[in-house]
């Protein structure tokens, strides 16, 4: 392709070149909005039909871990924005530093997610044959995350929820399917994002990104922020359904 400096032949100006790339990225992100929108719609309908089970399931999640991950992800969005800023202002040495910080925060997120998922496996909260929403209240010695002081309260809560919905155990699996489906797809997007960040890191250490041409940094930034937005919605939808009791 004919290319003059940073400008490819089919464009008039660098500005037009950049706006074209960012418009294309946005069209892709809109398809992602529809993708996650459909999943959240399915979540909404199930939550409406089985509210007790969704509230119960939500209360078994760890709010400190979920809240911490929200902060980590917001911070990683900030460092990503700073990486884009460094490339726009020609601070070539800062780009890899901010990209590394973003990757590290992404991996902290994965680490916390691993702890959360492992806890669910441990507590028999994986949809399927051995799913048991009462496992922890019936076997408190086998669940590390349940406090002896809260046990009576949790027992009463679960009994009350079973009173309202005799099929709580079946419906709670709907909640956990939504939980693993939504957070799993979000994590998959983050894995792809982390791969893209490593690629940016390699190229930025070779000094490829300048104020004239930093399109990849900008577009991966848009993608990373989008993944952050998905989590901004997932956090209240999954962790904060029914905390006020």
């Amino acid at each position, binding site marked *: 392709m004919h290319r003059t400096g940073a400008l490819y032949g089919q464009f008039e100006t*660098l500005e037009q070149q950049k706006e074209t790339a*960012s418009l294309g990225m946005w069209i892709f992100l809109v398809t992602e909005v529809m993708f996650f929108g459909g999943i959240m*719609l399915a979540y909404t309908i199930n939550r409406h039909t089985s509210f007790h089970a969704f509230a119960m399931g939500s209360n078994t999640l760890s709010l400190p871990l979920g809240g911490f991950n929200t902060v980590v992800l917001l911070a990683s969005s900030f460092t990503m924005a700073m990486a884009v800023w460094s490339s726009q202002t020609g601070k070539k040495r800062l780009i890899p530093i901010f990209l590394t910080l973003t990757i590290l925060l992404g991996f902290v997120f994965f680490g916390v997610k691993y702890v959360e998922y492992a806890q669910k496996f441990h507590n028999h909260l994986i949809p399927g044959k051995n799913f048991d929403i009462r496992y922890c209240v019936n076997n408190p010695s086998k669940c590390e995350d349940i406090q002896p002081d809260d046990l009576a309260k949790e027992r009463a809560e679960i009994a009350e929820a079973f009173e309202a919905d005799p099929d709580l155990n079946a419906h709670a699996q709907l909640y956990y399917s939504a939980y693993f489906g939504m957070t799993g797809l979000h994590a998959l997007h983050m894995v792809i994002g982390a791969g893209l960040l490593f690629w940016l890191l390699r190229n930025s250490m070779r000094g490829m990104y300048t104020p004239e041409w930093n399109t990849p940094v900008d577009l991966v930034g848009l993608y990373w922020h989008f993944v*952050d937005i998905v989590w901004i919605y997932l956090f209240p939808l999954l962790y904060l359904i029914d905390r*006020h009791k």
Partner: protein
Amino acid sequence: MSEHEHSEHIVSPGTYVAIILSLLALTGLTVAAAYVNLSDYVPFKQANIFVALLIATVKATLVVLFFMHVKYSPKRTKLVIMAGIFWLLILLFMTLSDYASRIDYRGVRFPMSQHVTREAFPRS
């Protein structure tokens, strides 16, 4: 290429710091709001989820406008985003209005009776 004017708007780090601090504050606010039964204060049963989604939308808007610098993007990009949100609203509104007005084959109105599904899950 120096002969081309480079007129893209660069958001300053100060703005980014202000945005991240607002996002963190709003995260704290949404957690605090979840611990209060808001429908005790307003005659609206779904007050909690309404407030939670409102805060999430404010946060998402801040991210889109500043981190994704849409505030300084051309109108064309804004149009694509608005079209996307509009399409999402069609998806949500039409599907939910179908569910809200439908009576299913058992003659049960949405939300369906939770007891009917027992035969579908005999093990539970």
